[in-house]
């Protein structure tokens, strides 16, 4: 018992020294804050969302002279984002080929072609068509553009259908008066969709990335921090000073673990604070569950950090090993892109990455306000992973540290 107390008090002294050492490096402290800001800004702004799209150059070649096509062009021109700016900046072209040339020259990001018989076909009760020409060099924009254009076209189409069906009902109403009671809209689109949100409002992309970045920063600071801290001391020679002192090897590892835990948690909380203050992220869940989850993240990655610190001889190699692990984790864990959007193979890989579970659990709690009952599988996986890694890492460290 005394022995265990001694190990803990020794490790707290080591941790205190590490943190003192860490806070003396002002430059590092500054970057501890700047790095997550950069990450949030980058990920929050470079990925296009519907809101971030405005004034997309769109070409329209309308050869029709009728009223319906004019209304459609008008609708496209007037289309607005939720914050009130125009989505398209419309340019007029004469025919399909000039539209295609303009896309090739990247003057426009897409085009709509309406043939000269458009209104006439509708009047003759035939199917008219409007052609969408996407800019395939820009898949993401062209996907959104196509969606929007289809919306407008099908909206126009529904409008025409309603008028026509109304007319038909009126005509057949003389024979069957019941028909005049019917709503043409109910016949054209019998099924309507409605949305019932778990949280009020529309979540922005920051809301999606913030929990992931929190998980990522906690992981990076624990893993890299631990490995670099040990290999730095090894290189400098100060590790020998700890090793010749009458303290248990375990307290040396624990001390490093404690100091990196404090650092990881602090960095995670900085990300959260920035997300709330600068990027308007809202925490819907319980703060306590969130903190416990962050702590669990620290625990899960501790083992890998210790293992690498035992095996890497120098800071440089520790960094290289860490990058090799962290880079795929960063992109496959669903931090920046939803896992559901990845190819099947990648989805399987993301399932074996512990960061995925940390990110998912944090996202559930922060965005959806989930309670413990919704995240317990993630908690279990992270705990087991961390425990297994530590069970491997600690004996390895103790054996390897004195050659």
């Amino acid at each position: 018992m005394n022995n265990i107390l001694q190990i803990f008090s020794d490790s707290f002294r080591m941790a205190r020294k590490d943190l003192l050492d860490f806070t003396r490096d002002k430059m590092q402290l500054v970057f501890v804050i700047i790095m997550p800001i950069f990450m949030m800004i980058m990920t929050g702004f470079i990925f296009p969302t519907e809101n971030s799209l405005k004034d997309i150059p769109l070409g329209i070649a309308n050869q029709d002279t009728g009223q319906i096509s004019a209304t459609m062009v008008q609708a496209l021109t007037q289309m607005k984002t939720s914050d009130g700016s125009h989505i398209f900046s419309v340019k007029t072209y004469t025919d399909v080929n000039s539209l295609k040339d303009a896309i090739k020259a990247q003057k426009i990001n897409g085009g709509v072609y309406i043939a000269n018989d458009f209104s006439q076909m509708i009047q003759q009760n035939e199917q008219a068509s409007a052609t969408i020409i996407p800019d395939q060099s820009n898949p993401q924009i062209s996907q959104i553009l196509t969606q929007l254009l289809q919306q407008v076209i099908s909206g126009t189409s529904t409008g025409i259908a309603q008028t026509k069906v109304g007319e038909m009902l009126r005509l057949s109403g003389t024979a069957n008066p019941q028909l005049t009671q019917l709503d043409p809209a109910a016949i054209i689109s019998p099924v309507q969709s409605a949305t019932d949100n778990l949280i009020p409002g529309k979540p922005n992309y920051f809301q999606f990335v913030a929990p992931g970045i929190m998980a990522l920063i906690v992981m990076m600071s624990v893993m890299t921090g631990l490995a670099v801290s040990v290999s730095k001391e090894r290189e400098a020679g100060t590790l020998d000073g700890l090793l010749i002192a009458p303290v248990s090897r375990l307290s040396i590892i624990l001390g490093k673990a404690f100091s990196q835990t404090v650092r990881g948690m602090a960095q995670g909380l900085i990300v959260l604070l920035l997300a709330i203050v600068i990027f308007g992220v809202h925490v819907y869940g319980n703060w306590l569950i969130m903190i416990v989850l962050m702590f669990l993240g620290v625990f899960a990655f501790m083992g890998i950090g210790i293992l690498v610190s035992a095996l890497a001889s120098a800071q440089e190699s520790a960094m290289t090993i860490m990058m090799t692990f962290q880079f795929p984790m960063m992109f496959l864990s669903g931090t920046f892109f939803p896992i559901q959007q990845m190819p099947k193979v990648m989805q399987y890989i993301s399932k074996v990455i512990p960061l995925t579970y940390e990110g998912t659990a944090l996202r559930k709690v922060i965005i959806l306000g989930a309670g413990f009952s919704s995240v317990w599988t993630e908690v279990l996986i992270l705990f087991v992973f961390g425990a297994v890694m530590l069970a491997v890492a600690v004996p390895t460290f103790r054996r390897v540290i004195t050659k």
Partner: protein
Amino acid sequence: MENIIEVKNLVKDFNGFKAVNDISFYVKKGEVFGFLGPNGAGKSTTIRMLTTLTRPTSGQATVAGHDIVNEPANVREHIGLVAEKLILYDRLTAMENLMFFGSLYHLPKKETKDRAMKWLKILEMEKWAHKLAGTFSTGMKQRVNIARALLTEPEVMFLDEPTLGLDPQTSRSIRDFIKDLHAHSVTVILTTHIMPEADELSDNIAIIDHGKIISIDTPAGLKASIKKDNATLEDVFLQLTGRNMRDDATVHIPSARGHMFGGKSRIR
């Protein structure tokens, strides 16, 4: 007088390279024991084994009556180390460094502070006590480093090239200091490449080469052993170890090899 260090058939094998090849010697309590040898001869490896930083491949050794393999914790309580590399944190002040290392030996805070102040005073570093160690010159750092090693008042001090890269003034003061330790009957194991230094300070000297001890004697005995009038220790050293420079070191010395792959500390 009793032996404070006893080494018997000690071997350290780094993947087939015998850095220390079956050495045996003993050191009497209170003596200054000089440990000389060309670069890569096995001095540092021997010191690392005796300070429990490296496990021997075979053989036995006791320091202050405790086995280095089976009772490393007891050995650590009796030793102080000034290694090739400074054991100091650059971003901590001199005092913070001393207080931290003192706390690892579970000395009471007050006691640590008093001792730290005392050593800093003796080593003329007291006015720098609250300055960051990273801002010190090599000589100043080495003085704090020595204060750190002495803080626990160890029975055995291992000094691995303590005057390396220091100016004559600091070297002189460190040599005086070693004499002072000697006067207080602290056992000192000293490695150095400076022959007059070894000659001046040591009671006994072991010369090691290619992992083997080739001679142990008093400085006077060593000098008398070669046929030369007014022989110096350097003459003895060069005669015993040959005049060839150890330029093959990078191939055969694991520490040098380790260095090439980005770190010296992995294997020593």
